[in-house]
Structure formats: C-alpha cells, structure tokens
C-alpha cells in the first residue's frame, strides 16, 4: 500500500511542476461553463421549461457536466504514447509495480490535482449558472465513481494502441471531440434526436458523464448504475486482455 501511495505522491508532484498547463486546464471548463450557460439561456428565452425540462434542471446539468468533464480529462493517453515512443516504457517495466497498475495510479493521482481545481470552478458555476439539490446523493456519488472508472478504461484502451502503432497521432484529438458529444458533456441525451440518442445509449461514453448527472437530477436511478456496472465489467476485462497482449509483444525502442 505505501508503495502505491508513494508512487501517486511522486506523480502528483510531477504534475504540479507544470503550473502553467494547470492554469489552462482551469480556463477550459470555466469557458465551457459560461458559453453553455449562455446558449441554454437563449434556448429557454424566458420559458420555464422546454420539452418538460425546467430551466433549473438545465443549468444544473451544465454545472455538473462541466465538473465531470474536468474530472474525466486525463493526461494518461499522452503519457503512455510518449513513454512507448521514447522507449522509456522499458524503465517502467522494471519497476516493482505492474505497468497497468502504474497507469491506474497515475489516473488516480490526477484526481488529486483535479479536486482543488474543481474547488475553483464549482463556486463560479453555482453563482453564474446554478445548482439544485441532488435527488439521490449516495447514488450520485456511486455513479460518479463508476463513471470515472469507465472513463479510465476507455482511455487505457486508446493508450494501448500506442504499443502497436507507436503513435496515436490525431486519434486522441478526434476522441476528445467525439467524446464531448457522446458523453453528454455538451448536450444532454434527452435533447438529442431519436436516432442519435439510441446510438449514444448503446455506447459506453454516456455512462461517464450523462448517467451520474441524470441520477443527480433524479432522471435516472439504479437502472443507470446497472448499465454502468455492466460497462465497467466489459471494459475492465478488455483493458486487462489488451494490456496483457501489449506487454507480451512490447518492443522497447532505442539501445
């Protein structure tokens, strides 16, 4: 246990050396928050609800989805790609913590950096956009945890591609753009056209942001948790398999 905490501590100090980058990571959600709030206010234009969704529900959605997106945004894909390309992954492989576990600990370390960032974004969000009380706080916390874990799995699967191709190129960027939609970070699923909503509901990304926020708002419950649990089991198994394969065939670059 202590070795895991020590590893996390080191990763956190390392992330904290790049203050400038952290500052930008902070500007991003604040901007998203203000822009989305402006858009939805224009959509509602004085009406108290649209399609049965009240304005306070919608502003709460914006606040929370922004915070969740901030939590999900993780450097791990970039980190793995760079370690594999440079051959530094060879060094990681001779550490006494298994490589996959190192990545999970790295992801957990980033949460420790995200919490103080959220402490900045949260009050701004509450004041500028608004927040209603949670419908089911316990269930929401559980769903948030599951959503974070699912997101970890998805990112680890993307990162693993680097073991085969050595580069992820535009893939990461594409993923971030697409995931903003598919996770429900920009637009809640209930406002999506029927065909898109069906497609999104069959994909795992909605379980990262949309499900916990919907549970907070009382629009989903144990059903949502069940779907999340299923995705977590499936993706978790995929991660273990893919990483095992990757480690078996790993080719370390450079002398």
């Amino acid at each position, binding site marked *: 246990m*202590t*070795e895991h905490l*020590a*590893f996390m*501590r*080191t990763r956190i*100090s*390392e992330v904290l*050396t*790049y203050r400038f980058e952290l500052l930008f990571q902070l500007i991003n959600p604040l901007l998203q928050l203000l822009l989305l709030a402006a858009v939805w206010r224009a959509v509602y234009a004085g009406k108290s609800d649209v399609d049965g969704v009240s304005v306070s529900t919608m502003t709460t959605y914006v606040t929370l989805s922004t915070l969740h997106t901030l939590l999900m945004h993780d450097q791990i894909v970039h980190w793995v790609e760079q370690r594999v390309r440079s*051959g*530094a992954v*060879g*060094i990681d*492989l*001779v*550490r*006494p*913590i*298994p490589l996959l576990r190192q990545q999970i600990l790295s992801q957990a370390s980033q949460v420790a950096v995200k919490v103080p960032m959220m402490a900045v974004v949260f009050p701004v969000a509450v004041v500028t956009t608004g927040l209603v009380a949670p419908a089911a706080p316990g269930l929401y916390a559980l769903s948030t945890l599951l959503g974070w874990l699912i997101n970890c799995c998805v990112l680890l699967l993307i990162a693993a591609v680097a073991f085969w191709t050595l580069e992820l190129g535009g893939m990461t960027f594409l993923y971030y753009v697409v995931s903003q939609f598919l996770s429900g970070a920009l637009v809640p699923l209930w406002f999506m056209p029927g065909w898109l909503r069906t497609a999104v509901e069959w994909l795992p990304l909605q379980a990262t942001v949309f499900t916990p926020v919907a549970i907070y708002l009382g629009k989903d419950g144990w059903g949502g948790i069940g779907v999340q649990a299923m995705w977590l089991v499936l993706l978790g198994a995929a991660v273990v398999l893919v990483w095992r394969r990757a480690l*078996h*065939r*790993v*080719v*370390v670059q*450079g*002398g």
Partner: protein
Amino acid sequence: MPLIEARGLVKDFHRPRRRTGRFAGLRTLVSRERETVRAVDGVSFSIESGELVGYLGPNGAGKSTTIKMLTGILTPTAGEVTVAGVVPWRKRQDNARNIGVVFGQRSQLWWDLPLVESLRLVGKLYRMPRTRYEENLAKFVELLDMRPFLDTPVRQLSLGQRMRGDLAAAMIYEPAVLYLDEPTVGLDVIAKERIRKFVADLSSTSGTTVLLTTHDMDDVEALCERLILIDHGKVLYDGTPAALKDSYAPQRELVVQLASPCEVTVAGARTVESGEGVVRLSFDPAETPAAALISELFGNYPVTDVSLQETDLEDVIKKIYAGRS
C-alpha cells in the same frame, strides 16, 4: 545453481520491409510484408553469484537486447532464462525486486523532480525500512559524491551527475544483481573512474553480481574477471580476459633501452622496431620465458632499462572485430 542462466536465448524483431523505387513510402506503408531481424541468436551462459562479467560486442551485436530479456522487459522469441530462480518476463515484478539496472542512454529518475525525490520513491517502492534507506542514502551520497546536487531537479543535472544518481537508484535497495548497459558512455575520465570504483566496491564488499556492457576497454580491464563476447547475436568467447589475450594475441612485447645504438638479435624474439637506442621485441612467452629473454639481453648488450608491455585488450578486441564477417 547459477544466479543468472540463459539457454539458447533468441530475440527476433519485425519491421515493415522498406520498398524502393516509385511510391516507395506509400508502398512501405500499405505493405504487410515484414522483415525479421534476429538480434540475439541462441545465446547461452551461466553466471554464478558474485561474478563481475563484461558483456562485450560491436554496435548492434545484441547486448542491449540480451539485457532487456534478462531484466524482463522483453519476452524472448525462443530459449530460456532464469535470474535468481525467476523467469524474468513471466514474473516481472518478482524479478524487479532482485535486480538493479542502469541504462546509460536512459534514466529511471523522474525528470522534473529533485534527485532525492526519485531515490525516496525507489526506497518506498522496494519497501525499504526507513533506517535502512537513510543509512544507504548516506552511504551512496558519500561514495558517489552526490551532496552538491541531491536537491537539484534531474533535468538540470549533467550527464555524469545523472549517471551517479541512476546508479544510486539502482542499488539503494541492495539487489543481488546489477545490470549496467554502457554506464560510462559520454563521461569524462574522472567520472568514469568514480563509477568504476563504485562498481568494484559493490562487487567486493556486497558480493553483488554484475553484468556490464561497455565499449570502453579500460572499464573492462579495471573491473571484469570474465568476458562474454558476442557478435551478430552469437557468443564468440566466454572466459577470462587473460585467456582471450593469449588466444588472440599470444605475442608480448619487450621494450629495451640501450646505452648505445646497436643491432639486437636474440633467439625466440623478433625485432618489431629499432632506432635511437630503443628496440621493441616481440616474443611468445609460452616458448621464450620473459626472464630468460631479459637475462640474455643483459648478458650480451649494453642494456640500461627494459619494460614488459601488457597486451592491450583494446587491440585484441579490435583484431577480433576486424576479423569478423
């Protein structure tokens, strides 16, 4: 039972076959055709606990690839390897606890953090009791003279400082085996000397088993009791440096200073060079003992001084590399 045992180790790398001619780049990209490079080709050796072995060979011989298999980084294509009873690639973490490794070209230290932070993390990762860690840290800071840069971020260290930091990180948890892949590359003579002394001390006082690759024959002369020489992934020689010299360069040289210039002819020795009162003689010590040669010289010529030249390992190795296919 040997500590490190390799039996018929093979490692193949695959890479896309390069096309030439029209649209070469595009054709390389879409082609599924791949060529195989056999980097290590049936290497076997066994190393007993406490040995200090030099693993030598020209560029691209397969040294680093072998070390990557011994450390568990790479999975062998064929063959078997055990280190302290563990198959490294099967049980990477168990193996990691038994070994320390320094890659000269690459660092295990955390780039952005002060050196001491990396060492502290290593201490924790290997579950060292605090007092043990403190003792070893103090010892290594002293031995490797790291006090002046212990709190400096690794990215600001010079190559020699970083290498010392890497050695400390590899050894602070007292592993039984140490792999050194070109630990002195790019270092100045003083820094090289310091690292050699550290490795020699480690080997003699802690009994650490060391496998060292280097292109610096001074490292080998200073440290290794045994050499394994490989080329094209195959073992060419495995034995002591002295026996290697004897088999590849049996001749030794005697430099004779004369009071006045004169022709020197003695049985069993050949004149290699002569002039200005200095004569260099070449002889085979198996046939002509050095003592007999010297007493004959003193008896017949106005000799003021003689010195027996050590066979230079560098020359021997050069000769072997030059003679390869």
